[in-house]
């Protein structure tokens, strides 16, 4: 013991431990029910909700899709998804800029997941904080629209480091903006060599089927048709 009763104690603990524990609980819940989960992250307005609508048009008929929408305020996105006829819950995070795993765990425990095969979580529009907090997802998807600029993987490295799939959206606008797709691909691969990259346009539909095929294959691997 040092003088004055001062002692240094080794801790070596993750600062995000309580969040990590909630994420582990979500992962266990999803594994037990064989539900494949996506965590969608992007800036506001990159096309998360539009991609979810495309996913629903492919998967909803096959049964068992549930959606959780995260926004600081409003039920606008949940209403939009509800019109597609699937089970949806809205989390309003108020002062928080991302969905906390504890919030998601509470919402999931209130939902009927007995027939669910695919869970889609749309995080709050933000490239910083959602990247720090795993939600127990199987696949983390980051969307980057071409109007946002090609330097984003360098400015927001953590989300590109931790995402499994990068979707470059609004590619129909490429002729009108300065956006070097090859630069983004290079930067994203430097951040995460294993990242899978897709280019899509919701307007022309280009690239969307390939992305949906990939999600379908990933979902089938974890959650075989029942």
């Amino acid at each position, binding site marked *: *013991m040092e*003088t*004055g*009763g*001062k*002692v*240094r*104690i*080794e*801790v*070596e*603990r*993750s*600062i*995000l*431990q*309580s*969040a990590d524990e909630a994420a582990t609980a979500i992962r266990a819940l999803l594994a037990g029910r064989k539900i494949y989960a996506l965590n969608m992250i992007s800036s506001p307005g990159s096309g998360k909700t539009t991609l979810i609508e495309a996913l629903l048009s492919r998967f909803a008929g096959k049964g068992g899709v549930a959606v959780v929408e995260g926004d600081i305020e409003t039920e606008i996105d949940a209403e939009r998804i509800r019109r597609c006829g699937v089970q949806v819950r809205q989390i309003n995070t108020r002062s*928080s*800029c991302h969905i906390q795993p504890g919030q998601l765990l509470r919402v999931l425990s209130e939902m009927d997941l007995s027939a669910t095969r695919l869970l889609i979580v749309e995080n709050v529009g933000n490239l*910083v*904080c959602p990247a*720090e907090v795993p939600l127990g997802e199987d696949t983390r998807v980051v969307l980057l629209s071409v109007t946002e600029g090609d330097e984003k*993987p*360098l400015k*927001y*490295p*953590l989300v*590109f*480091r*931790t995402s499994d799939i990068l979707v470059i959206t609004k590619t129909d606008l490429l002729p009108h903006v300065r956006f070097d797709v090859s*630069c983004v691909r*290079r*930067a994203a691969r*430097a*951040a995460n*060599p294993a990242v899978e990259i897709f280019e899509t346009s919701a307007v022309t539909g280009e690239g969307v089927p390939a992305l949906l095929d990939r999600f379908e294959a990933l979902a089938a691997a974890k959650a075989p048709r029942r």
Partner: protein
Amino acid sequence: MHELGIANEILGVALSEADRHGAKKVSSIRLRVGVLRAVVPENLSFLFGHVARGTAADGAVLEIDEEPVRVECPSCGIADVRSIPWECPKCRGAGISATGGDSLEIVSLEIDTGER
């Protein structure tokens, strides 16, 4: 301002560790923070001081060790940088890999047990 959530988590861990060791006071907290975490040390210290007010960690100093990103280039070897580059910072070559820089950990605490 995402440092506020991080400050709260640090406080939670520090207070539970202090309690476990029967400490009256936490005088300093050593952190390992990766450069990719977008944590501004001044913001974190300011917000921590605010949330810790009136607790056993009131007045505790945050000692923040920054963890760099480690870049490995097949021709130049290893370099430590502050962000993920898309080419080797030395030879501008591609084919690099970047690791680390994403830590967010409490390394150790200095506590006062009040014993002499």
